[in-house]
């Protein structure tokens, strides 16, 4: 190694040093004053311009949600720190705006981070702010998109969901988000956020020492979010809501789908809440009231609630029994008032029993003892197998469904209850009682393949979206998950049985036979509390039975599958059927069903 080369390296270091030293000397000593003035006069600030979100339409183009400009006042703490008290008083005096304590704290502690003082100014406030601008030095007015929900959207708060600011976690994960950008937090707003969101723009401006914008240097326009069309029919949703409301029932859910393509036509969770108030921000009092409400308005019962299905599950059991050859379509079985296993007695809901009935008759009168018998012959595992075949216990569309049904079997019981599976469990299972629990949305799964000829489809909410790059609407197609290998004749048998529920002599939903359009369905009453005596009256709402009714209309070529669930609604025929009737009546009245 040559030490001469070390000297060269040292020399290189020295040269670099001298260049930088003289540069620092030049910048800081010779031009120090120049730059000091520059720094006082010119601040370059990069501002983020948030995009409007895409609009949400229903299937027929009824507008549900859009963005409108909204004015807000903001400031930077370092500009107003020294005269906070004064500003606070003026805001109250002139504009009637109170600064909350937490915002005041942020102004006191912060420095260059933007702080929003008041959102959604009224026209009056904007006018006054502009007229008194000299009193509000250091405060700025800006436009931000605000989410507005139309009158039709009011009937579907759970479905549409809400928007909010991204959490810290979301911000870290996604660099395309800004802290004051609205993103979907639940429902459709969240599911289709990638279409609706758009991307933010930026603006570089020169501001003077007082923070006023002197000029704009460059600008990148924000790109607005894509519009989407849902499969929802807003008119049906409104009808469904009103029917439920008029029934006087307190809590429940209604799901309407088209069985041909499994598009969701209406999805109601009752009671609802005010979606616009929710989007604009609730007061603590309002929020607490919503949380305290015993009928849980914030909870999306249609998708997230798990309830025993009761007799509507008999459809699945009947189909399984036919397919497995446990019973033939026209084979009549004696079904009395009781079914005995050893010392245990299982009663029919109707103490008279049903006599000799075939599967259609059993569906018509919802004969428990018939289903006890075929259920026991099938065994719990085969029942579970068929339930799963129809998509129960599975998220057919994980974007929409957040919870899955509980499909019990011996393994499940051993794990969660810690007890072996008894024959009595199978008996209960065969009439949709016991450990089985499904969401109101899942109740549609029982019938969709039966009505469309045996196809398990992916439920869908999106009809079309606007593709920004192609500049046109893209229609979303239905996806087939699998074809069920079941004999089509059995579907017809089931449908006939369900027809008799409405039009048969002893049908449980005879109320519907007066409707001007042919329809069919199945009632369900799910026990919540074990009655001591047959006629015991239950006063407490939360101990009453759940009521179900699944209906399809028109009977020949079903276009709507309507599932009504009334939480603690006492009985399917008593509360769920009348609601269904009023829904179909109104839909017919408005020409939605012909």
């Amino acid at each position, binding site marked *: 190694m040559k030490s001469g080369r*070390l000297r060269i390296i*040292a020399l290189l270091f020295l040269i670099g*040093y001298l260049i*930088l030293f003289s540069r620092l000397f030049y910048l800081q000593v010779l031009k*120090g004053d120049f730059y000091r003035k520059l720094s006082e006069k010119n601040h370059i600030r990069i501002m983020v311009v948030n995009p409007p979100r895409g609009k949400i339409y229903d299937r027929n183009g009824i507008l549900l949600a859009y963005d409108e400009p909204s004015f807000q006042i903001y400031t930077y703490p370092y500009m107003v720190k020294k005269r906070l008290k004064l500003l606070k008083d003026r805001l109250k005096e002139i504009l009637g705006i109170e600064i909350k304590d937490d915002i005041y704290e942020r102004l006191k502690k*912060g420095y260059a981070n933007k702080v929003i003082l008041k959102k959604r100014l009224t026209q009056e406030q904007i006018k006054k702010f502009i007229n008194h601008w000299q009193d509000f030095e250091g405060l700025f007015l800006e436009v931000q998109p605000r989410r507005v929900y139309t009158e039709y959207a009011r009937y579907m708060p759970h479905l549409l969901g809400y928007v909010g600011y991204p959490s810290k976690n979301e911000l870290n994960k996604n660099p395309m988000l800004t802290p004051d950008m609205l993103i979907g937090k639940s429902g459709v707003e969240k599911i289709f956020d990638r279409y609706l969101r758009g991307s933010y723009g930026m603006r570089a401006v020169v501001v003077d020492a007082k923070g006023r914008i002197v000029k704009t240097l*460059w600008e990148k326009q924000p790109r607005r979010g894509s519009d989407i069309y849902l499969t929802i029919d807003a008119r049906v949703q409104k009808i469904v809501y009103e029917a439920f409301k008029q029934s006087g029932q307190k809590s429940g859910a209604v799901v309407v789908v088209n069985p041909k393509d499994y598009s969701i036509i209406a999805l109601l969770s009752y009671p609802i809440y005010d979606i616009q108030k929710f989007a604009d921000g609730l007061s603590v009092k309002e929020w607490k009231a919503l949380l305290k409400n015993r009928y849980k308005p914030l909870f999306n019962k249609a998708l997230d609630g798990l309830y025993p299905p009761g007799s509507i599950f008999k459809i699945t059991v009947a189909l399984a029994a036919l397919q497995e050859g446990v019973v033939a379509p026209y084979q009549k079985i004696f079904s009395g008032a009781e079914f005995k296993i050893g010392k245990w007695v299982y009663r029919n809901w109707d103490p008279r029993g049903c006599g000799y009935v075939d599967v259609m008759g059993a569906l018509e009168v919802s004969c428990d003892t018939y289903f006890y018998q075929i259920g026991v012959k099938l065994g719990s595992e085969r029942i579970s197998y068929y339930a799963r075949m129809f998509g129960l216990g599975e998220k057919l569309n994980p974007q929409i469904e957040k919870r899955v049904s509980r499909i019990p079997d011996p393994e499940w019981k051993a794990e969660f209850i810690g007890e072996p599976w008894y024959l009595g469990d199978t008996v209960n299972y065969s009439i949709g009682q016991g450990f089985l629990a499904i969401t109101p949305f899942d109740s549609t799964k029982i019938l969709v393949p039966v009505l469309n000829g045996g196809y398990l489809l992916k439920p869908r909410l999106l009809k079309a979206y606007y593709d920004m790059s192609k500049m046109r609407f893209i229609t979303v197609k239905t996806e087939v998950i699998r074809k069920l290998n079941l004999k089509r004749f059995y579907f017809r048998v089931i449908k006939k049985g369900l027809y008799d529920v409405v039009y048969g002599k002893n049908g449980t939903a005879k109320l519907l036979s007066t409707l001007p359009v042919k329809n069919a369905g199945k009632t369900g009453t799910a026990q919540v509390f074990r009655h001591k005596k047959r006629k015991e009256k239950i006063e407490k709402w939360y101990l009453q039975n759940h009521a179900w009714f699944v209906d399809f209309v028109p009977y020949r070529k079903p276009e709507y599958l309507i599932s009504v669930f009334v939480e603690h609604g006492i009985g399917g025929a008593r509360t769920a059927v009348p609601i269904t009737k009023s829904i179909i009546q109104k839909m017919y009245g408005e020409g939605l069903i012909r």
Partner: protein
Amino acid sequence: MKGKFKNYDFFLLFIVFFLIGWSVLNIYSATVHEYSNLYIKQGLYGLVSVFILLLFPLINYRKVVHFAPFIYVLGVVMLLSVFLFGVTILGAKRWISLGFFTIQPSEFMKYVVILITAYILGVRKEKVDLKTAIIVLLIVSVPFVLTLKQPDLGTALTILIPVVFMLFAGGISHRYIVAGITAVILSSPFIWEHMKDYQKERILAFIDPQADPFKSAYHLIQSKIAIGSGGITGKGFMHGTQSKLFFLPEQHTDFIFATIGEEWGFVFSSIILTIYLIVGLRMLYWSNKIRDDEGKYILIGTASLIVLQAFINIAMTVGMAPVVGITLPFLSYGGSSMVAFSLMVATALSVIRVYREEKLHF
């Protein structure tokens, strides 16, 4: 034990301690206004670094060099793992997450490259010939390319810098140096073609900042104003207005010198500049005395890396170099950078300690 400490180069040690303390102070000023507790984190990294600087030199550097091939393989594996499990921050994959903190393997790679080069050059006692140079460059090209792919042009360049200086000090023939420089110039259009758009923009912005003053040159201009407005004595600790209005994350990492220049003025910014020169020259001074080749190379590599990285970073903040993402050694925010530089200096201190010890024994 006590005897070993006695042979530390305390001058070098305390200068580095000073830089670490100064770093925490300035990161406090640069970030605390935004409710950030980054200075606490930096303080912890600083503490770790102080321990490394105090204890690591007790290990004989020859043992470390002996394991250089193994460390090299480990380092390359770490770099590769960035591609597999890396975290993406601001569009680049440079970090591995270890739960509550992330590490940037490419920062440590600089140290590894100095070790492996010293190992190879040290084995061949003679003047560095072409064959040796090619072997070294081949070995170094692996981490260089991996880092370039992250993409991280700045760090990739700083991986190469110490190697070039070590080869030069090793006495590689002038002909090859001239050939190397010519090759770089000739291939520059090709390199330009393969650069990312943002990298091109930065270079163009550097050549002509006024042409596009508020996109790529935004940093350059803002930082120049910040430093210039600091004047002779600065605006005072925590009183920099310009650097606080940056709205950009780099004010505590790559652009920390802007905060220093603005708040402490020419007096202190020139002192900081001088400190880097002193660190470099001090290491060169020792390397001239030492007869052991491996030790010599470690000192030269470390000195050239610290001085060049510091100078390039400062040149960038005063508008004399295009913006490439590299840290200011010991001052910028970041655990990987600080710990990696501490390891380098600690190894250099070990070289000096062993030299002094052996000299006393003879």
